[in-house]
């Protein structure tokens, strides 16, 4: 501790260099933190522990094909099944296409049972109203806040897939543990079905809730086997697999992000190593003087390493702080067209990753020039004037 002021003061030796190094480090770490967090956030949707009881059943050919609604009877009869809910992505527009949020036409009654983990706080009375009123809907709390809706308001969704306008009275809302789970709106499938006779008896997909997560694989296999030879065969998968398939459709973003992260880290390592080497080279005489005074090689090496580490940690720390600020911007921009990122924040796993990377960076970039400086004979350093 008595040596701390030596290290700190050394950083002030060239204020400009210290600031520029910290800044370039901060910027790089900020980028890496954001990219890795995006990756982590997206992946977490395919690894949602709350989804372990749920199965998505859709048409084997494509999610855009409809399946017969009567399948629900067989599904409900399965002993492992707790509840089944028919669901159709409506994709309606509220006022402006930019106001994007997921909206579904669904079976109203089973919602609270099937999505028990997400509908954490809600009013039973409100939900009873919703079930009773065919022209009503429920919306998550975050959505209500975003558009200033109150229970009792009437909103209109312009259909894009289904050419109709849905005039809906908001009958209820719910709160979840995560903001992303409060971004959806549900109304009655019957409303769409009665408008288009060709859709009668059909639905987009089913959400099947198993009583026990262990039954899920068996159930999946049985469902698909049962409907394999039907005119409309099914494809069932766990909710996480379903989400993963959606994420994959966006493209190979994981590879892109990993590639960019690696490139940035390599670049910053090179730059920082050079800066450290430069700084240490300049102090060749001073290092020699310290050793002449009686500081051992190890002591001097230690001082230089601590200095290097402090510098990189300062840069990395600043970068992480900046990334939290940027996270807000990402939420505003990307969050609008990618609902996955509505809740975007820097994940603890990412913080840890960046912290480790920064420390490794500090050690790697400082060690070699510091070690070489300390191994050089003292007289050489003194002569280096």
């Amino acid at each position, binding site marked *: 501790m008595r040596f701390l*002021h030596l290290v700190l003061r*050394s950083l002030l030796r060239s204020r400009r260099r210290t600031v520029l190094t910290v800044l370039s480090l901060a910027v790089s770490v900020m980028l890496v933190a954001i990219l890795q967090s995006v990756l982590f956030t997206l992946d977490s949707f395919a690894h949602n522990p709350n989804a372990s009881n749920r199965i998505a059943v859709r048409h084997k050919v494509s999610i855009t094909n409809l399946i017969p609604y009567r399948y629900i009877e067989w599904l409900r009869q399965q002993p492992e099944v707790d509840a089944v809910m028919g669901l159709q992505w409506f994709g309606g527009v509220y006022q402006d296409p930019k106001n994007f949020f997921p909206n579904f036409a669904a079976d109203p009654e089973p919602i609270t049972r099937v999505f028990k983990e997400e509908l954490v706080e809600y009013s039973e009375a409100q939900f009873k109203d919703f079930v009773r009123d065919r022209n009503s809907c429920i919306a998550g709390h975050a959505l209500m806040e975003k558009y200033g809706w109150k229970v009792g308001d009437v909103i209109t969704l312009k259909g894009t897939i289904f050419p109709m306008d849905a005039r809906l009275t908001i009958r209820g809302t719910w709160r979840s543990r995560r903001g992303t789970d409060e971004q959806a709106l549900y109304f009655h499938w019957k409303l769409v079905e009665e408008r288009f006779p060709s859709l009668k008896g059909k639905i987009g997909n089913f959400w099947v809730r198993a009583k026990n997560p262990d039954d899920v694989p068996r159930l999946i296999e049985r469902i698909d086997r049962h409907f394999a030879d039907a005119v409309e065969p099914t494809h069932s998968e766990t909710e996480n697999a379903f989400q993963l398939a959606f994420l994959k459709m966006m493209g190979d973003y994981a590879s892109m992000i990993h590639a960019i992260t690696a490139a940035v880290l390599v670049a910053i390592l090179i730059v920082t190593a050079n800066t450290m080497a430069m700084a240490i080279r300049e102090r060749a005489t001073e290092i020699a*003087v310290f050793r002449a*005074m*009686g500081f051992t*090689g*190890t002591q001097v090496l230690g001082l230089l390493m601590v200095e290097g580490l402090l510098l990189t940690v300062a840069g990395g720390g600043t970068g992480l702080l900046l990334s939290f600020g940027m996270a807000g911007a990402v939420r505003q921009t990307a969050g609008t067209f990618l609902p996955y990122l509505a809740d975007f924040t820097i994940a603890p796993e990412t913080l840890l990753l960046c912290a480790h990377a920064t420390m490794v960076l500090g050690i790697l970039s400082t060690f070699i020039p510091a070690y070489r400086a300390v191994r050089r004979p*003292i007289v050489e350093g003194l002569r280096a004037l």
Partner: protein
Amino acid sequence: MSGNPIITCRSVAKSYWRGELEIPVLQGLDLEIPRGGYYALMGPSGSGKTTLLNLIAGIDRPSGGELTVCGSDLASLDDDELAGWRAAHVGFIFQNYNLVPVLNAYENVELPLLLTDMGRRERRARVEEALALVSLTDRMFNYPRQLSGGQEQRVAIARAIVSDPDLLVADEPTGALDAKNAEEVLALMERLNREMGKTILMVTHDPKAAHHARIQIHLEKGVLDKTVERHDPTHHDLAPLPPNDPRDGD
């Protein structure tokens, strides 16, 4: 004040290697320097005077011979032990002062004490004492860039004595100073030798500086050339004579 000499060199040799070529700088040098001596090492460039200083100060290792300084056989100490030995026994004074620019005078002087196990209060007392000795108490918290060349060198001297070493080595201490400051620094060094009994070994070109030393040792091509004693009536009770050297002009 006789007794064991503080520095004993026996057949000390040092060569440098340039690729395959061996370049000898010191060749079989014998020397004894008593405690409390004030010696000037002189000679043309390439004579090996700085090399000899470096060997005695323990910042370089001889290629051959025996070197005993302050009671330790330097060849038998490894690098870390040598570092510890230097911290305990040697104070350095450089031509370019070599103060740490980001530390103030107090902190520069304190540096050697950080290697001891002294507590903060004790270090403070020593630093203040050292700075008082060089008459720079009022500049204690100034940074090197705020000091003149002479003041910087005095801070460096304070740093050299703060841990109370037996031996002070100086490499051209007045080389970067003007006449007035050089005088002040040399007077200071003389006081250190006279009043505190510090042994001083100084490499210098400057005949005026050499004049302050009591004994001048001249080196030529890596061997002792001649030894010149300064017989000054006002100071004669101090410097003990070196052992008989067959090449003494006497």
